[in-house]
């Protein structure tokens, strides 16, 4: 496993139509991971990809 497996925490589905368990990452651990690992591991090859599932463009939600 290329990444620290301790970040994985199986949770029960919050959507009943999803049969499988989904692994999650704690926001604080993600922040730590990104701060420490991006420059070393993912920087050049873009090995980390985020998928944003929010609606709209968020322009009306800006503080």
């Amino acid at each position, binding site marked *: 496993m290329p990444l620290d497996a301790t970040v994985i925490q199986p949770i029960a589905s919050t*959507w009943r139509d999803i049969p499988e368990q989904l692994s999650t990452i704690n926001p604080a651990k993600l922040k730590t991971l990104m701060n420490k690992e991006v420059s070393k591991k993912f920087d050049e090859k873009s090995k980390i990809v985020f*998928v944003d*599932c*929010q609606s709209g463009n*968020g*322009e009306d939600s800006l503080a």
Partner: protein
Amino acid sequence: MVRIVWRDLPYMWSINCTGLPNIATDNTGKQIVGAIHMDLMANIVAPTKFNDVIRSVPAVYNKLCSAELVVFYCSVAATRSPAVMSYYKRAVLAPETQPATYNKDQLVLLLEGGVTAYTALGGLPNRKYILL
């Protein structure tokens, strides 16, 4: 009959004074730089959106499949992003839809609490397009 439970409330559209759904409230205004944007209003359209935005676009699908780590998130990561994540996992694990570029050591994770929990950590600029 539609049953509403407390955990669904943050993800439902709010109703403004015109009685029409205010879709913009479903977006926190925060986004991680470089994220693939699905523009998903509800998990009921997740299969269609997943096919239109990810599965049908080879560049996007291959980018996801070859990544070492894929993180899905939405506002609070309770319904929309888990749904898309589920469809993604089903697609890449099924032999008929698994691309040759699929990284078998890939880690697919859901950002716990979504971008709301992430920005609550503090120390981030209060503007759109934050970067970790």
